[in-house]
């Protein structure tokens, strides 16, 4: 078990001999963990200082010379502050830049609401043709970095701060447009993304003892969404709960509702940050406060389940 951000830094090093790329950061290498790559490959690392807009522009320029780039910064200052640069300098021309959005959701913890971007997925997902990946544990993180390298073009990686538990027993292969069905179930399907997936899995195990059969999906590919998997879950359970450390507007919950409303109308409960700013606190305190822990998702599942029976 390893923090997702640490897995990100380790992954950059793991693939560095087989693939050529640069890594950039905006003075937060020690927090995004791109420092692991910096220390191993200093010649391929560029620290741009505290200027995220400039960093993403430089990343575009380097990629236009043929060199892929991973560029990381906290979610509010990458997806948020540098939105225009990501959109116009990187996505519009289709530059081979991997936009690494870290500390998304309330995971910036003690730093408070200014540092807790709960709308980064919504922003990145709405850009035409964007690809948005969100790993839920260490193994998915390694696989997402590899998938991003092998994809010719921009990819957004939403990298959590904390560890996501152990969801997979062995190495996995992430495919753009595919999620993972971690646990099958007939009563309710939880479609989750990122570090909260583990809480959903624990909740499903607890609820199984009460006779409620809950499926859990790690939707590693937020865009393109794994439509086949979502539709299969809807078909089987007729009861969907989405779960994310992100505003319930515009993120995974929004994506699932957009799909189901058109292709298979199904009741969906969106569980996540309920359209509010974050606040200071330890990660554990905030998980409780915002309902992103096991108790929070259990409550959401039970509510959806009871409504279904009615």
């Amino acid at each position, binding site marked *: 078990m390893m923090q997702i951000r640490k897995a990100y830094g380790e992954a950059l090093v793991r693939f560095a001999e087989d693939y050529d790329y640069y890594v950039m950061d905006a003075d937060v290498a020690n927090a995004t963990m791109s420092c692991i790559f910096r220390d191993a490959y200093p010649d391929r690392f560029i620290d*741009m200082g505290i200027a995220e*807009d*400039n960093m993403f522009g*430089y990343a575009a*320029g380097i990629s*236009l010379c*043929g060199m892929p780039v991973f560029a990381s910064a906290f979610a509010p200052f990458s997806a948020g502050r540098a939105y225009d640069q990501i959109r*116009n*300098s990187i996505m519009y*021309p289709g530059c081979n830049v991997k936009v690494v959005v870290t500390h998304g959701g309330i995971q910036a913890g003690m730093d408070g609401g200014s540092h807790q971007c709960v709308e980064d997925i919504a922003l990145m997902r709405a850009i035409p043709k964007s690809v948005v990946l969100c790993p839920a544990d260490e193994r998915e993180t390694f696989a997402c970095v590899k998938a991003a390298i092998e994809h010719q073009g921009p990819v957004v990686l939403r990298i959590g701060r904390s560890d996501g538990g152990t969801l997979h027993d062995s190495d996995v292969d992430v495919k753009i447009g595919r999620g993972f069905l971690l646990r099958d179930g007939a009563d309710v399907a939880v479609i989750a993304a990122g570090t909260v997936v583990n809480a959903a899995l624990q909740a499903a195990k607890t609820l199984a003892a009460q006779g409620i059969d809950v499926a859990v999906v790690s939707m590693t590919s937020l865009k393109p969404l794994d439509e086949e998997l979502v539709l299969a879950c809807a078909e089987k359970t007729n009861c969907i709960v989405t779960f994310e450390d992100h505003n319930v507007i515009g993120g995974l919950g929004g994506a699932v509702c957009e799909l189901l409303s058109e292709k298979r109308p199904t009741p969906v409960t969106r569980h996540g940050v309920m359209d509010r700013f974050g606040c200071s606190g330890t990660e554990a305190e905030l998980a409780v406060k915002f309902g992103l822990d096991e108790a929070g998702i259990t409550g959401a599942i039970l509510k959806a389940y009871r409504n279904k029976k009615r």
Partner: protein
Amino acid sequence: MEEKSIAELKAMSTRVRKDLLDALYHAGSGHPGGALSSVEILVALYFRCMRVDPENPTWEDRDRLVFSKGHACPALYAVLAERGFFDLEVLKTLRKPDSILQGHPVWGKVPGVDTCSGSLGQGASIAGGMALYGKKRHRDYKVFCVLGDGESEEGQVWAAAMSAGHFGLNNLIVILDNNDLQIDGRVRDIMSIYPVIDKYRAFNFDTIEVSDGNDIEQVIDAIELARKSTGRPTFIQCHTVKGKGVPLLENKVDSHGRTITKEILEQAVAGLDAAEGGAAE
């Protein structure tokens, strides 16, 4: 390409002005003022100072141009067409839905266009990235960045300048098309960028001031000097005239987005022809 004489480059500048006005007439909208002011800068670059190959527009070792003031692209398109990157006839498709010549340049669509631009200030950073990569990989290409003066009110321009100085990007040459007008008025009145040379000096650039940026000889001399810089990036302040070459538009605030009607086009072309005839005598 055989080197053109100064007289030939002046004639080319006139052709480019006619080309871009004709393209804007066919488009029915666009930005003539800032396009006309940048003509000599672009003709100097593509017909004298830059190492490019129209037969191989993505040549790895070519010099690169980031035309950051993307709204003035009719000038860039006309110069690229005259230089042989694509057919002159294509200019008439400017701003049409399926045209390669969009309202602001799109990378990958137009042979010879090295990056997207349009969202102001972003080209400064993109050019920095290209130059930094060239330095790190010991390539000998140069990167040119043409900035607008109104554009220089964007904070990103100064973040880019700080980093170019920091990295010592001696392969980067930033050229300011300083026509001193922006949409709402005079640059000095709306949001002054002056003194601009002092700012670049403070960011560790070598600087050159060109008193008439619509005099192609002066522009060429400045760029040739900048190419020789060994340790630092170079900033060239080109004092230009917005709407240059068309009396109806010259130094007029509303030349920025003025629609080129048939009447304006004919009047402008006649004026350019007369001026050229006068110069030749």
